[in-house]
């Protein structure tokens, strides 16, 4: 792991712990309350964690450019090393977040089982289902992360109106991946939408890769802006 990636993990470790603790508490309390008033037909964990991770990775993408880029360069790191380290950090974080959703779903399933079994309509947990959830969430997480970084890079490098114009193509990885691989289908389960999964995955990853390349091209020689920290 690079120096930059290690440093970013040191910064984000407490924030990541808070994020997942908060999601766990909200999902547990929400499920307990829901179970008192109605039959639980959904996994609150999947909904909260699945949505939360995408927005959280979008924020990380924004922060990498808006806040961290300048701080690392001010401490003698080259743009290339920062972008590489940020990429490693972002990719590992996306994998970890995407893995946490099926892991949490499994834990939720075990808790339900310990208390006499989940309701019939609750989304059952299985190894194959966990892989499917992960397979949908990881490309989505990467797409949202890259879009966050790319949108901010447009405003960072260019004037505000150019950043606004670039906002639409910069949001494509996020929007397309969400449309093709969103985990919340008609039955709140991973579902292929417009395209079969393999095709959706290919299109999503290609767009995310293109977004990553565009991000690198914008940031590789950008001037370090004079903005407040």
């Amino acid at each position: 792991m690079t120096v930059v990636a290690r440093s970013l993990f040191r910064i984000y470790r407490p924030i990541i712990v808070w994020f997942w603790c908060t999601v766990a508490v909200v999902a547990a309390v929400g499920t307990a309350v829901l179970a008192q008033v109605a039959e639980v037909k959904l996994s609150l964990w999947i909904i909260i964690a699945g949505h939360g991770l995408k927005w959280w990775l979008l924020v990380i993408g924004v922060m990498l450019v808006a806040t961290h880029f300048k701080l690392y360069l001010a401490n003698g790191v080259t743009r290339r090393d920062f972008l590489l380290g940020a990429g490693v950090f972002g990719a590992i974080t996306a994998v970890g977040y995407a893995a946490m959703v099926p892991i949490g779903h499994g834990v939720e399933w075990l808790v339900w089982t310990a208390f006499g079994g989940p309701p019939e309509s609750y989304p059952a947990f299985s190894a194959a289902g966990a892989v499917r959830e992960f397979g949908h969430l990881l490309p989505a997480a990467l797409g949202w992360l890259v879009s966050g970084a790319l949108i901010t890079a447009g405003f960072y490098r260019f004037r505000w109106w150019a950043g606004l114009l670039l906002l639409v193509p910069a949001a494509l990885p996020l929007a397309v991946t969400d449309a093709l691989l969103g985990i919340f289908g008609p039955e709140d389960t991973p579902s292929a939408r417009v395209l079969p999964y393999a095709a959706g995955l290919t299109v999503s990853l290609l767009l995310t890769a293109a977004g990553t390349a565009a991000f690198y091209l914008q940031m590789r020689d950008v001037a370090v802006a004079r903005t407040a920290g």
Partner: protein
Amino acid sequence: MITDIVLRDLTVRYGPTVAVDGLSLDLAPGKIYGLLGRNGSGKTSLLSVLASYRRPSSGTVTVGGVNPFENRQVMRQTCFVRDTLDVADSDRVGAVLSFAADLRPTFDREYAARLLDTFGLPAGQRVTTLSRGQRSILGAVLGLAARASLTLLDEVSLGMDAAARTTFYRELLADYLAYPRTVVLSTHLIEEAAELFEQVIIIDRGRLVLHEEADVLRGRGVTVTGPAAAVERFVAGRTVLSEQSLGGVRAATLYGRLDDADAARADADGLTVGPVGIQELFVHLTGAQR
């Protein structure tokens, strides 16, 4: 250790605005340079290029014979502290220093902690709550403790009180003597920082006005003090930068060196000849062009 810095026909443009205009400079290593210029003269743009914060629009920069832009070795040994201070406002002072120490192999944590004590800046205080002067102190601590071969300090004493500035100049000189490196100090507080400068670079409207040894620059002018009538006679026909009178005594600052005959004449007229401050020469050299 960073060696020679060479700039050739360096130009920095922001749209139609030319911040640095065809500037050429040679900076030898291991000196303290005073970078002087009026507001908008291109000082920060020049330092930004030296620090690889931006590419020049045209011209070349080499540090130790290589282009510093995106050069890992050079950038690691370069520390640029801007007046706006590149730190996270939400962090505490201690966290800012730890972050720098994690990334800079030459950063001296113990020295940084000592400097905080010397300046009276609490490590637990958040950056966002610091006053303008305290932010500058944090910048000074970052710049000094980094012990970078090329240290670029841009208006780093902005907002510091007199005591803090005195401490900063003293610490800069002491640490520079203990750990020699190239320091470029940009400041508008010329007179009080002038004693630190080994060489002075003056730029105006992005162009190089002057680059020479500080002592040579001081020799470009003299102050003549004595009876008003005698001073008036002596300065007739010379370039007078400034004049002050008190009772029957007048002091005139002249631009230009005195030859032996002039010095003898001044002595004969009962006039005292002394050195002139860099600030007065700076005002003359840059003011005349506007």
